[in-house]
């Protein structure tokens, strides 16, 4: 059967930190898989290091690649809203991933993680597992709206727990930066009971700094996202890393698959799909472990 050729544009941020790296990998992997499965689908992938470049990419897809659908993980919400709206108005199928647009009802399909839950689940774990009066430090990501959402939710979850947040500095979702910040926390605070690293890459830097200071027994660390190395350590029952909070980079795969299905099946593929953040514990870790992913 000679189906009509459909072109799907995919615009995502470039792999500048671990989570995005994982997302990039899943995107390419899924594209390869879907391309093989559905020969009438063609994918156009672009990655951008900032909003302006992403808007350029989307413009180019419209002007020169004649796409039928756009799957986009907006680098930032506000600046991308109007350009994506223009794509929609040109009659294309639009899937928005992870970061919502600042105007509702533009996209056909929305697939996202839940940043508020991401912060809340972590905060609740801290509240449940620390004594009142415990002291913690926080490493934040790159200053962005989603980082703000996560941190606010985290702080809200701690409300009334008498857990003291000693410090919150930016580790930029980067291992090296997190390592430096954690070293300085350790110099500065004689007592730290736990660390919210808010990202698995940062957690790795943090744990290294703690190990170098030989204070592994004093504190535990919670990262976030669900990186395979971290999941493995939870599976192995590492005391220092009791749990992790998911924010799966694989959500791009779901988005791509659903968009593809829109063209190859008759099932309606619109709506909102929120992939909640879950707590990975030693008990359930096995089901979050993907040894082949680079992330």
């Amino acid at each position, binding site marked *: 059967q000679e189906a009509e050729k459909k072109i799907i544009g995919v615009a995502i941020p470039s792999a500048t930190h671990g989570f995005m790296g994982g997302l990039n990998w899943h995107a390419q992997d899924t594209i390869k898989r879907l391309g093989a499965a559905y020969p009438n689908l063609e994918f156009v992938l672009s990655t951008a290091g900032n909003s302006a470049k992403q808007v350029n990419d989307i413009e180019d897809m419209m002007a020169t690649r004649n796409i039928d659908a756009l799957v986009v993980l907006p680098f930032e919400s506000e600046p991308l809203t109007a350009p994506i709206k223009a794509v929609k108005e040109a009659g294309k199928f639009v899937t928005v991933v992870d970061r919502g647009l600042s105007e509702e009802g533009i996209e056909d399909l929305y697939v996202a993680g839940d940043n508020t839950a991401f912060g809340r689940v972590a905060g609740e774990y801290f509240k449940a597992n620390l004594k009142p009066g415990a002291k913690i430090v926080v490493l934040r990501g790159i*200053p962005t709206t989603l980082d703000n959402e996560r941190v606010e939710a985290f702080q809200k979850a701690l409300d009334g727990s008498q857990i003291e947040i000693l410090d919150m500095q930016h580790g930029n979702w980067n291992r090296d930066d997190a390592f430096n910040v954690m070293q300085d926390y350790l110099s500065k605070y004689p007592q730290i009971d736990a660390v919210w690293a808010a990202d698995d890459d940062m957690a790795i830097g943090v744990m290294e700094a703690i190990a170098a200071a030989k204070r592994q027994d004093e504190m535990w660390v919670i990262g976030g996202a669900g990186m395979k190395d971290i999941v493995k350590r939870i599976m192995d029952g590492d005391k220092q890393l009791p749990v992790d909070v998911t924010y799966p980079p694989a959500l791009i795969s779901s988005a791509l698959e659903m968009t593809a299905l829109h063209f190859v099946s008759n099932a309606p593929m619109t709506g909102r799909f929120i992939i909640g953040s879950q707590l990975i514990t030693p008990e359930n870790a096995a089901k979050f472990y993907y040894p082949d992913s680079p992330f």
Partner: protein
Amino acid sequence: MKKIDFHTLGPLIALIALIVLGTLLNSAFLAPANITNVLARSAFIGLIAVGMTFVITAGGLDLSVGSMAAFLAGLAIIAMNALAPSLGVHWGTILIGMGVAILGGLAAGYLNGALITKARIEPFIVTLGTMGIFRSLITWLADGGTLSLDSGLRTLYRPVYYGGIGWLTWPILCFAAVAIAGEWSMRHSRFGRHVEAIGSNDRVARYSAIDVNRVRLMTYVLLGMLVGLAVVLYVPRLGSASGSTGVLWELEAIAAVIIGGTALKGGRGRVWGTVMGVLILSLIDNILNLANLVSPYLNGAIQGVIIVLAVVLQREKHAASER
């Protein structure tokens, strides 16, 4: 303009080669829509790069332009949002926002220039410092997130980026006007002559009764104002500013200037060359989007190779004409 400038021939050849490549890869490349897109988005870096040509020709450097653009965009948005309730969704409000961007750029450029000429600190250090400062300030103003323009104003303001005369949108017209004025000043005005003299040998310039500090300061002020103008065109495009706005624009602008044949050590300014350089850089991006060449991870590598090749092409010609 009467004589052909041989140094801009190199970049021109590289540009033509890229256009041919683009056409071969995708027939939509030469479609008016694509050309408008590419030209319009070149305008931001283009305006900045024209100003940067003067700064570099005078022997200076400005690393702060990207952060400055983000900061000015933030300021303009804050100003417009603050005025919107009282003045209403109105062109007046937008004009004030534009004024804020351009005057802010003037002030920011003056700050850089004054630190360099009055406090006599290396331009690299001064602008590295202000780069950090502007970047931090916008992040702080936006509270780590994004500053967005009031949506009513946004709608009103939007045609400044997307509208124009036919396919010649305002950014394209602005860029063309500034490039022509820049080339003219570099070639035919006293200011341009003085800028080249200072970059060539500032001691000779001083002995020739040129007010070296003033001219140098003016190059930074001019660049600041052009950053402001770029912001005036940028805000209607995305309607927002954040800590990631304008990241690495400084590197792109400097690269465009140097690809265009202006020497980093100063003394020889080629505004036409800079325009070519800007277009070359934009086209590389555009062409990478035209075809699924390779893994997107390797885009940066291809970009790097093309930049070096573009300059090799130019240097070969150059060397050949020198013998």
